[in-house]
């Protein structure tokens, strides 16, 4: 099952289960979505529940929020999260804060979804990761699926959740196929929000990643395994709430940590994970945390430069080795120190 089919089936099932759920956005109806995520939904649910909107992100996001205030459960599709910048006032000032500011009188059950992060060759204004932006805002829940199972289970959870959810998809993953368990195909399937998934167990180094970078981290783990380094890959799934418990448990075991994300390094998801580990289990770290992130520049268009601006599998491999090398070096140093002390004593 592709991620696209997973998202489509999740929307279909949730719309079928609850008549309050409706989809709105640019091109979601007749055109079946810029990336065909809403394929077949207009035909099945009609134009009242699959709503093609005029082109104003600020407009349809505000209208979606208002519909959520008054009892509907909108799923607002952004053609890309880059365009949601125009609507960020409604996502943060309206959706994220209203339950709190109204003291629970107005809940905002809404999902904002669409592709996030870099696609391929679409330049600076179409290639940006918003995980850290939305991840810093109380009142929002922020999810980033990797596989088809993630996409199905998390989107279904997002639609059912009473709080506003920012759902960050990835354009390059839409066409990717993943095996899906029978359990995940059941219409009742749901993945709990706020729980990370150990994609691959390991004992030497923990690598955290989300969305497309989980795939890169898994590839890096293959390479590392051949060199005798056992990497544990954590698929964060949920950026907010962040599953600190799973990350901490893994680092307590491996004593080393590499964070991976496509977004900019400063104030990023990696920075948050790093400080969280330092605050809570600093004594378990045997090496400095390594942070792999996108380059600190707007995304260039040229393919060669674009590649340079994004984390590659080799970058993750090198970072994992650096953390492992530092500890073995420290061990070496420790041994030579002991040897040295012994030699001095022997001379005495």
């Amino acid at each position: 099952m592709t991620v696209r089919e997973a998202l489509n089936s999740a929307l279909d099932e949730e719309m079928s289960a609850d008549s309050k759920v409706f989809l709105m956005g640019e091109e979601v109806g007749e055109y079946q979505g810029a990336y065909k995520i809403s394929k077949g939904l207009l035909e099945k649910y009609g134009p009242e529940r699959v709503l093609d909107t005029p082109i104003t992100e600020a407009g349809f996001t505000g209208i979606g929020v208002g519909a959520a205030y008054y009892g509907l459960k909108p799923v607002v599709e952004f053609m890309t999260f880059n365009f949601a910048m125009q609507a960020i006032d409604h996502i943060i000032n309206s959706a994220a804060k209203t339950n709190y500011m109204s003291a629970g009188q107005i809940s905002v059950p809404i999902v904002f979804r669409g592709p996030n992060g870099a696609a391929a060759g679409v330049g600076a204004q179409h290639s940006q990761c918003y995980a850290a932006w939305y991840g810093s805002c109380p009142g929002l829940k922020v999810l980033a699926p990797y596989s088809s199972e993630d996409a199905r289970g998390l989107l279904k959870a997002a639609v059912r959740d009473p709080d506003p959810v920012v759902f960050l998809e990835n354009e390059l993953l839409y066409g990717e196929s993943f095996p899906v368990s029978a359990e995940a195909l059941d219409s009742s399937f749901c993945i709990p929000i706020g729980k990370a998934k150990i994609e691959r167990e390991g004992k030497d180094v923990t690598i955290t990643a989300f969305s497309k970078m989980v795939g890169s981290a898994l590839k890096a783990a293959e390479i590392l395994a051949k060199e005798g380094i056992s990497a544990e890959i954590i698929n964060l799934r949920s950026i907010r709430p962040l599953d600190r418990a799973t990350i901490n448990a893994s680092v307590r075991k491996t004593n080393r940590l590499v964070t991976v994300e496509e977004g900019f390094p400063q104030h990023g998801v990696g920075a948050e994970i790093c400080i969280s580990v330092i605050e809570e289990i600093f004594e378990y770290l045997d090496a400095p945390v390594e942070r792999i992130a996108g380059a600190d520049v707007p995304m260039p268009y040229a393919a060669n430069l674009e590649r340079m601006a994004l984390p590659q599998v080799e970058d993750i491999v090198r970072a994992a080795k650096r953390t492992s090398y530092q500890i073995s070096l420290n061990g070496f140093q420790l041994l030579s120190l002991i040897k040295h002390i012994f030699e001095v004593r022997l001379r005495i």
Partner: protein
Amino acid sequence: MYGQDAVWCPMNGQVLDFPGGKVAFTPEMRFISGSPVERAHCYRVLDENGQLTMSSKFKQVSEEIAVKMYSDMVTLQTMDAVFYEAQRQGRISFYATTVGEEAINIASAAALTIDDPVFPQYREPGVLLWRGFTLQEFASQCFGNKDDYGKGRQMPIHYGSNKHNYFTVAATIATQIPHAVGAAYSLKMDGKKACVITYFGDGGTSEGDFHAALNFAAVMEVPVIFFCRNNGWAISTPTSDQFRSDGVVVRGSAYGIRSIRVDGNDALAIYTAVNAAREMAISEQRPILIEALTYRVGHHSTSDDSTKYRPVDEIEWWSSARDPVARFRKWIESNGWWCSEDESELRKSARKQMLHAIQVAEKAEKPQVAELFTDVYNVPPSNLCEQEKLLRETMRRHPQDYPPDVPV
């Protein structure tokens, strides 16, 4: 029919079938004027002396409703006066009055039902008052005590009450306008016989949200009333610096929305216009735009001194010659529904109730520490629970560093 080529009509010249209807071609190159020869007319029922203007058509109001409308306008004035004084005495942090816009507040509310959701800006507390929100409830919000429905989380005047179908005031300008359209879509989906009303000022119409909301409402065909209180001033910005159109009413037709301009200081005109707007919005499932011409007699808020940027005699003229409350009083008096004894009794009792309300609100306990963390989410996530635990431990260890009036 979309997509057809131009057809030749000998009688009318060439006509183009274009999305939206037929468009005639003309050999004359003429730009549509940006300023009309005559400004859009303003619907009025009562003149400055509270007398029915000749041949004015309006919706009749019963004695009971008229007296309640007047009483609520006076109560609103009293509430404003007492809260304004309380702010000046430093008892509350902030306040904004509705002075000059009492008729807009009360008459528009009177023309609606409790089933019609309200998406207010912040100068419409009279709508809540009309719906039965008590002076004590207003005071609890302004003092941010434990009885405040907002749990002390918002500045004074940011009221909200589910019970009264009145959505919590947002401090962001104009965001309520698209929210109203969304809520109206919800009403439409449910097939309810109700409409949404949203209020905003002249300044708010410059926000993108206003334009997006009007366009969407027209396209989505939803039952919503856009009520613009054009009071001439957005803090210190006069409407001449805000827009160059003939006010706000003309924007409606550009979006395909039926619109009307009314005298915002004439309670009967407002009542009649909102009543008709509601009827059309619901039965025809369409948005309506109302522009009420009025004046912000008070300062923008207690953070403002408007005499610094506008002439005092302008303020004086609007507050005396065009006072909407005095005008409506003259009308109910001429109907024999009101007399000076009623007047002094009402004003005395409103002030007494108001003073009592703020005394009670001031003495009431503040919200508990736990309320700092509730409602961020439906169920608090673990990091919030940890924060609360940490805060409580720190408060226990360093009580001197925390305000004594916060119940733990």
